[in-house]
């Protein structure tokens, strides 16, 4: 048994429970919902379907992470106190209403434009937004892990989810049935979103740098410690700054028709940065020392 043994020491301790399944869910769930949201904006049912599928895939991973997956249904029982319970409803709502929402676009069921249609749309939008942000609330209200204990997380997760959603859309665009996508305007959107991510992440770090011991240690790990290279190089530079700069340089000024290959590379970089961000946020979750 080569499992890491947690020595009985007083000190800053890393969280060890949430691993790649949860991280992947955070990433896919957010991205799926973000993608769905964008699909409404650009009115593209197939994109919406992709968004829902990504969310379902993410949820599947979350399900696999449970100790007793066969009892998953019990997770719906405490929506008045538990964000995870709420999340279960959000996911369900989004999947159900999202499916209803996109059905006509795919040629099913019912005619768009009815009053019922607006309700469905409103609910699915709300559900998608909630799916994107609730994971931030799962992390943030807990006083246990100071680095997560920040009101910014729901916002950060929202923006990152949109960013990732669009990136997945960009990557999927050649395979997507339906109307062709306007990659240029999507890529433009990404410039704003990436900028927002950058500002939010940096302000989170600056808030945390004057927080509890464990939060400062998290920051140390992210900037100078074990994860310094991945965070600064991966999340910040490769995931945000480089795509931003390139995008800016190429798209903003020149009205030039974007080459698909170009956006693909940028999207891949951002997705890499986004996943890494979720990964690192979870990995540097540290508890304060008890004494």
């Amino acid at each position, binding site marked *: 048994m080569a499992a890491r*043994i*947690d*020595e*009985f*020491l007083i000190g800053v301790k890393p969280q060890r429970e949430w691993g790649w399944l949860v991280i992947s869910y955070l990433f896919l769930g957010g991205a799926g919902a973000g993608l769905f949201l964008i699909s409404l904006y650009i009115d593209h049912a197939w994109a919406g379907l992709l968004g829902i599928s990504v969310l379902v895939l993410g949820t599947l991973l979350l399900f696999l992470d449970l100790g007793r997956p066969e009892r998953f249904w019990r997770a719906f029982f405490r929506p008045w106190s538990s964000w995870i319970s709420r999340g279960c409803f959000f996911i369900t709502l989004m999947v159900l209403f999202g499916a209803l929402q996109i059905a006509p676009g795919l040629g099913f069921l019912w005619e768009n434009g009815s009053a019922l249609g607006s309700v469905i749309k409103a609910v699915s939008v709300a559900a998608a937004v909630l799916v994107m942000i609730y994971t931030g609330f799962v992390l943030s209200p807990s006083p246990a892990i100071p680095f997560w204990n920040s009101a910014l997380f729901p916002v950060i997760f929202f923006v990152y989810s949109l960013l990732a959603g669009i990136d997945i859309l960009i990557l999927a665009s050649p395979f997507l049935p339906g109307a062709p996508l306007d990659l240029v305007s999507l890529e433009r959107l990404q410039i704003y979103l990436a900028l927002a991510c950058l500002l939010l992440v940096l302000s989170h770090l600056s808030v945390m740098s004057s927080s509890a011991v464990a939060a400062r240690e998290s920051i140390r790990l992210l900037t100078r410690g074990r994860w310094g290279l991945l965070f600064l190089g991966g999340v910040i530079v490769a995931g945000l700054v480089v795509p931003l700069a390139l995008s800016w340089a190429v798209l903003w000024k020149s009205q030039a028709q974007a080459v698909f290959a170009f956006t693909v590379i940028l999207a891949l970089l951002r997705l890499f940065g986004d996943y890494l961000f979720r990964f690192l946020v979870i990995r540097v979750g540290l508890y304060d020392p008890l004494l």
Partner: protein
Amino acid sequence: MIAPGEKEDVWIHSICDMCYAACGILAHRKDGVLVKIEGDPDCPASEGHLCAKGQAALIGLYDPSRVKAPLRRTNPQKGIGVDPKWEEISWETALDILTDKLTKLREKDPRGLLVSNFDHTASTYFIGGAWAVAFGTPNHHWTGYYCGNYLHSSMYLTNGSFHSDFDLDYCNYVILLGNQQGFMGGLNANVSARKMAEARKRGMRVVVVDPIGTNAAAKADEWVPIRPGTDGAFILSLINVLVNELKCYDREFLTHRTNAAYLVREDGSYLKEGRDGKPLVWDLKSQGAVPFDQADIETALEGSFVAGGEKCQTAFQTIREHVKGYTPEQVAPITTIPADTIRRIAKEFGEAARIGSTIVIDGKVLPYRPVAVNIYRGAGAHKHGTHTALSVQMLNMVVGAFYVPGGHRGINLVGPSGAWMPGQTAEGLITPPAAIGRAARYYDFEDKRPEGMELHELFPVSTNRSSMNQLNLQDPKMFGLPYTIDVLMVCRRNLMMNNVNPAIMAETIKKVPFVVTFSTHLDEVAELADLVLPEALSLERLDFFPNTLTHTMSPATGQFYWGLRQPIVAPRGQARRWIDVLFEIADRMGFLGELYGLLNVKWGMKEPYKLDPAKHYTMEELYDRWTKSLFGPERGLEWFKENGYHKVPRAVEEKYPGPFIKPRFPIYFENMLRAKKSVAKVAAQIGREWDTGDYQVLPEWKPCPAYKDGTPPYDLYVVNFKIPFHSLSITTQNPWLNDLSEHNPYAYKILINTETGGRKGIKDGEEIWVESVAGKVKGQAKLTECIHPEVVGIAGVFGSWAKGKPVAKGKGVHFNSLLPISLERVDPVSTGVDSCIRVKVSRAA
């Protein structure tokens, strides 16, 4: 015992066997399954509390790697890691083989049988001794590398008992010199820990002098890190400050309760009334030398005189001059303890002693000396350890803290209702009561050629010469004993793990033609055996009184008590109690009657319970008779099974016998001169040069051999210490305790001072080698501030390698592999093996 499947829910009185503290337990058995063990609130040793080991005993009962049937070796090749190719045989066959070997041996020379067992099972242990005597061998006490060599000898000599202890009920200031009494180590660990906690709440100061920041040091008011092997110098320096600088000593006690006032001649011997008469003291009234016990005299404690034309002085005068060589300034560079610290501790100790004060307990006015310095294993486990222990006792005596409230005391010097009392020599000095003293001869010596493996006559002042077994086995010609060992019988002793240097030990054991072990597991010794007999685990066993009043029952237990270890479940497989098997062997070989006869004497059996040598008794019947003989017909075995404990409160005279007994305590060891002569004669008889330099009237500090080998590459000392949740090697196969140890930051590690480690480029958690001249071990480094910078610390008795102990195997580090053994490396008085050794450390990369 109930049949499996039957419904029941019972709590059973029994006694823990995870260490010799023998705490009372209540075992919860439900439908035939032991489900919990708790402390028995009725037991004075546990008071309802159990330590981690006691709690964990439960899971050990279910260990699937237990030995379940007798096993015979089929592979003639023996060695560490060599598969014996065991063949399962019946008990019948096993006993046939064994009795055949023993019968032949007994005809040839019974002394060729060596028995090695240890005293956790207390009175059962003494039956083993009686059995050996009935068989005809003097060799039944191989306890190897052992805590008690120097300790028990020094205590028998100074306090007339087996042990060193102190009165936690009243003590206000204690110096724990290399031991953890009161912190889940040492004697009656549980009740002592409880009383220590109380005493500390009361404000008792605890000074822990130890190279390692142990659990005791963690809680001490002051941790004084000391260089290993230098405690003698430290203690003698405290005495020096007290008697020469502060003039703080208990004049009354020294004059009347010790031999400090005895007049000694220039050669160190007593000035006596005639050649064999009583020692003399100086009477200030008559200004002349008179017998020490003469009435109406005013005895001089200090001074030099001329008596009968001979120059003499009091022993105390000699002591004062002797310790002048140990000023704090001289001792500081030896011990690494700053001179001011030594001076301050001496002052605090002296003040806390409240010399002259008294206390009234149960209507008796007693001297009140609430201080003690306590020694057990660590400080004394060195060459010259006897000197260290005797210095400690001198310090306790200097302030009069001896068998009085708050001070040092031994174990039950006076028995219940005065059942036993100490004896007295012609010089008026204390001797252990017969019930306690095992072969302790401190004042009269037989200058005869040694016959036993332990070479008693060469170490007359020692009560346990166990390490000599090892040397004699290693080289049978060494002392020219007229026989060799043909059969070695081992029970509950891990000669490989707990002795020094397993590589040599294995070679030694291999030399014995036939080795039989009674084993619960195929441990490191069983791996070298020819025949393995499955032994029942303590929770499956009936054992005679596990805590013996005369040896291991600290007065901290408040009451004298007798309790019973009774089986909770039936023995696993074909396992049996070893003592039962011994009785059966005696029966088969025809000396059962003799054994009964010896037990009648040993147990002081009264009619009508005396054993009839012509009869057979079961273990239960023997027990029943013994308890009834002791406590009357209504206190039979059944009564103990039901009720647990027979208790007798300790009277003041039994708790604090000091002021009530006549014999004096020796603070000046004149008998050593006679021992020296005797040893020289014995050595001459066997034609050996012999170092008798340690037989001195007053202890000195002398460096261990390791003290001077501080040259690179062996630049550090290695030190072993006990941890509260393991005892020796027996707990290492326990999976709960192993689990805990794996989580513990220290248990399985090699401790190095952060700075020392840093200097050597060693990082925390890194694999390192520790190497001495005798061997090397590997383990994970733990950089810590809680260790002397010159020291490497290794806990417990870990690092097992036996396949039969899969839980213990490969866990932690085996300290004893680093120790060599040779005559030069044992304490010449007690035979205690020196555990002081220099090592070097290097990264294992």
